[in-house]
């Protein structure tokens, strides 16, 4: 953070808020009722980042395995709640547990693999490495699992008829839902695959941009970026497969019947 980095002065930072004024002016002229949200989100962003900045400063200066672990657990917990909130439609209690356990299991396994085998920093709890890496792995897994849950729920609703027709022919619930399960895995990992395809050409990834702005040699930044993209795709794949592999079971009872089947009776009155 030294060789010739421009530390933004208060004035420079204040000038950046000019962009928000432009945004406010546009919505005002166009009479889009969003001024309140823009103001609130700008203030929240500022306060949250200031807070995080000070917390990180403290954590970086006082590396401690317990604090690092606690922060990562808070991040995973927040991610899990965020998934519950973002999914449209009711999530049953069992489904929520499955989300929680696949997020915990998948992200922590990926994180350990990434830190101990790929990057190998020491001490192992060095927050300067551990926390940003955890943030990227947990954040992307969260997006993946959200998409996976949504596709699964939608699929089980829209293709209920198809699933039932397969059961009638003697299919196991696993076989009857194979297509939906594969679709939800696919939709969950697609953004990650697209990110790999477009990276470096369509956009420079945030982490790399940050490192370059902070004065890191672009080649080193790229090495890190490659590693993190691979790590993220592995983590997303792992969390999502842990989820979908078990989640389909929630929709069936012990007699391998679709649950809530009575909601759509009267099928012979076409």
């Amino acid at each position, binding site marked *: 953070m030294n060789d010739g980095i421009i530390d933004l002065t208060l004035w420079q930072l204040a000038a950046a808020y000019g962009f928000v004024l432009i945004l406010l002016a546009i919505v005002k002229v166009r009479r889009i009722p969003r001024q309140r949200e823009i103001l609130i989100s700008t203030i929240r962003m500022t306060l949250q980042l200031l807070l995080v900045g000070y917390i990180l400063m403290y954590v970086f200066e006082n590396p401690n395995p317990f604090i690092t672990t606690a922060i990562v657990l808070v991040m995973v917990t927040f991610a899990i709640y965020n998934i519950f909130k973002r999914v449209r439609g009711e999530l049953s209690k069992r489904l929520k547990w499955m989300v929680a356990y696949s997020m915990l299991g998948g992200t922590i396994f990926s994180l350990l693999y990434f830190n101990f085998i790929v990057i190998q920093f020491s001490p192992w709890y060095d927050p300067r490495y551990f926390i940003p890496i955890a943030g990227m792995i947990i954040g992307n897994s969260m997006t993946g699992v959200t998409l996976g849950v949504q596709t699964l729920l939608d699929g089980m609703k829209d293709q209920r008829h198809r699933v*039932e027709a397969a059961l009638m022919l003697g299919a196991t619930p696993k076989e009857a839902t194979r297509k939906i399960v594969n679709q939800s895995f696919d939709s969950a990992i697609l953004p990650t695959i697209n990110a790999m395809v477009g990276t470096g050409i369509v956009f420079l990834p945030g982490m790399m941009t940050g490192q370059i702005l902070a004065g890191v040699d672009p080649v080193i930044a790229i090495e890190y970026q490659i590693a993190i993209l691979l790590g993220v795709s592995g983590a997303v794949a792992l969390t999502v497969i842990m989820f979908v592999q078990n989640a389909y079971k929630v929709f069936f009872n012990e*007699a*391998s019947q679709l649950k809530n089947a009575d909601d759509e009776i009267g*099928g012979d009155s076409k």
Partner: protein
Amino acid sequence: MFTFEQVLVNGIIKIDDAQIEAGKITCITGPSGSGKSTLLKVMNRLRTPDHGRIYYKNQPMEEIDPIQLRREVVMLAQDPVLFGDTVRENAEAGRAFAELEEADEGEIKRQLEAFSLRHSLEQEANRLSGGEKQRLALARMMLMKPEVYLLDEPTSALDEKLEFDIMGQVVSQVQRQEGTMVFITHNQQVAETFADTIFDVTPFTLQGSDINE
């Protein structure tokens, strides 16, 4: 083959005592919304009766593994469903679901031809017409050669001539295999032509009950 004992289905149909005989063709008739489909689904254990007991081969149904039962007592859904892209994949899907060995190509072709489907096996199935899809779904089930065939309006999308033709094929195949068949139809003439026994659910329908749709 099936024995009903004090069975209440869906809060609509109440059957105190009835039998469906092995090796016979039984037709279920009754007005719309009387729960005929649900009655078939109960025999396939896709639904559980509200109360009462159903025996399959003298064994209480709830004691039989539901997946194994459905592989013996196969049911054809009312609206045809596609499984896979090509005609071949669709025809093979039933045997695949039931974990039976694949049917050979000649057999698949003969079955499709019996139902007047003369498409290439590699033809995309979603380009078939509604009636063709229905016959394809029927062929998929026939290729499974189960002991019991449960058919929910298997020929509803076909014109009268084809309907009789296809039903005749189905019935003769089931009889050749000494199988049991239970089907639903709205066509009284089809019922009278092909069924050994007609099981009218009207007298078993509870009066004043909440009939859906």
